[in-house]
């Protein structure tokens, strides 16, 4: 909102509300992302951040509210259609296709635009070979960017944690998104890996001309890379602003540390 005012709006969320039974997981959530933003969504555990992601990607259907991506509403569209329109995501607890190779994990992202039909693959037409080689090359390129060359034939489940995270991000990028949603990408990483991850996020943001929204608990990551931050607590937005403003915000401090924490310190 504050930054990139001249860029076109890519995601607009208005009055987004989701109830699970009587529990208001997300209430009246508002957000606008401009093309090229690198924004953060933070809040204590259970604040409803991941629910927001699931609503944007269509895994949950909102109780109320509007989500507009690239100028069109996502209401009534299947999750896979929303992904195909240009939203990709990673998951809080890594969700790789564990029994498939690293390369296949990335190549799956090309399925919607593989460029050949079932008939082509059954009859092994020339188009099949050409397109399959093409997308394999592209997938290998992505793996190279993420420093994963040489392990393309390993099963995803056999990789160490940090590499699994990177495969997941590579897979999301291979879907050719305009908007990338990262759900706690730094979870479970050591300080060295976190620094590498921050570099990586900066790099993909610039290289692929992406809009990125990330959920994160590690304040170092959020404050270090996000230009604009939205803070949630109990399903509601309690603060917005750039990192400096958020750090100084009394309500945010209260949400994280509890009331009176400031006096105790």
């Amino acid at each position, binding site marked *: 909102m504050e930054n990139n005012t001249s860029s076109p709006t890519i995601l607009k969320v208005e009055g987004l509300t989701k109830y699970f039974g009587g529990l208001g997981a997300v209430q009246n959530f508002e957000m606008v992302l401009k093309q090229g933003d690198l924004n953060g969504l933070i809040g204590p555990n259970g604040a409803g951040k991941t629910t927001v992601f699931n609503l944007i990607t269509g895994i949950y259907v909102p109780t109320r509210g509007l989500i507009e991506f690239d100028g069109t509403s996502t209401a009534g569209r299947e999750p896979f259609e929303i992904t195909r329109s240009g939203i990709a995501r990673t998951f809080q607890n890594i*969700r790789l*296709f564990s029994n498939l190779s690293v390369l296949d994990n990335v*190549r799956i992202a090309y399925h919607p635009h593989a460029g050949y039909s079932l008939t082509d693959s059954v*009859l092994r037409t020339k188009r099949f070979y050409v397109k399959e080689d093409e997308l394999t090359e592209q997938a290998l390129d992505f793996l190279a960017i993420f420093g994963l060359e040489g392990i393309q034939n390993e099963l995803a489940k056999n990789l160490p944690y940090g590499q699994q995270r990177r495969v997941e991000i590579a897979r999301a990028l291979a879907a050719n998104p305009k908007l990338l949603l990262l759900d706690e990408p730094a979870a479970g990483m050591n300080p060295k890996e976190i620094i590498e991850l921050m570099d990586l996020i900066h790099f993909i943001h610039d290289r692929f001309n992406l809009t990125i929204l990330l959920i994160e608990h590690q304040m170092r990551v959020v404050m270090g890379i996000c230009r604009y931050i939205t803070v949630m607590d109990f399903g509601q937005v309690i603060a917005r602003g750039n990192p400096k403003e958020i750090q100084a915000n009394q309500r945010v401090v209260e949400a994280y540390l509890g009331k009176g924490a400031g006096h105790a310190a």
Partner: protein
Amino acid sequence: MEFGFLVGSIVKILALLAYIYGILWVMAQPSRWVKAGGLIVAFGVVQLGLTKFGNFQILNSFDSGLLFQASAMTMVALGLNLIYGFNGQFSLGQWGFYGIGAYTAADITYRWVNGDARGLVVIAVGTILGAVILTGINKLLNKIRGVPVMSAFTLYLIGSIAAGYVAVMAGKLLFPVFQPLLGTNLEPGILATGIPLQVVFFLAVILAGVFAAEISFLLGVPVLTLGSDYFGIATLGFTIVVNVLMVNSDTILPFPEMKGGRGMVGIPKLTTWFWAFFFMIVVIVIMRNILRSSTGRAIMSVREDETAAKAMGIDIAGSKLMSFIIGSLFAGMGGAIYAHFIGFLSPGSFDFLVGFNPLIIVVFGGLGSMTGTIAASFGWLFFLEGLLRVLLGQMGTEAPTWRYVLYPLTLLLLMLIRPQGLLGTVEWGFLKAKEVLVRQKPKPASTDTPAVQA
């Protein structure tokens, strides 16, 4: 005698495994000529074994029976492996589709050799028209969007009934045209013998498969929205329904020639080793080509993690439906091969209890391994029927029943020792996934990459 037989049976099973390995190896060869030649040799070797030289025959009629059954079983089991092993949907309905395929194909050829072309005409018109109508409705529903599943199902059902009605009418209309050319059972006409009959048999196998696939589409639309376990129960119900319909085919269904529970007799025995081998290879090739493509990766991603697959833009419902349809197509074709080998169809052989056999084979061979399924289909039949039955048979008339004690024990042992199945996910030759090596060309992107070395 018993010892010699035991050794002989084990040698046969090992020879079969070597044979399967050989076929898959030769199919993996890059040269088209080598491939074709190898397959002809593979076909010829068994054909030679089946041929009588005076009194000498390597594979007796008992063995050849097992061979044909095994190739039909391979087709059903591969279909089930596609659905269960690769797509992760637990289907118990494949035996029902196998039965549908068997009865459909049998009805076509039985009527044909008895001077009645309606079987072929009705099924051909019905399946083709049905396919057109169902695809049309599918396209339409994709445009309208947001139609509830049951409404969509109703539309599909109405479309299929319409196709069926037109098909029956077409049968009535076209039936006299073929009449003079078909002759009667005792005096077959020009179309009811020789090559024309083989063509009709070929069509019958294909149509039986397509018909089973269309039924599976109708069943799959509402039922695949259920979770995997519930889907299993629903498809089990389907197998039971099909079985009940078979038992009552002459009373509640208008098919007196199927003779209900007494069993359908007089089906022309048209399955030769050529056809069994041919259709088995076709099924193997189609399945491998699907799995080793983008579609196959999408199918497997659904098994691995549905939520992640959705987030990667995979149409979960479509992918499940597609593997279910293709799996049922294979089952229907397998049924057709079986019917024309055995010449007699009894509803008892399509009972849901027998329907667990393909499941056992798939798990035994390894979920997600095509090689395992093929090997297990052959090995299982030759072990259960070829080895145990005959071996135990020599110990007394009732002794063969013990094979149903020994064989579950074998399964139990295998599951304890190798829970991933005989072959796990190992594939041989042709079925292996191609390993992709990193290319040597310079990578322009990696020079300005941040330091993210593993």
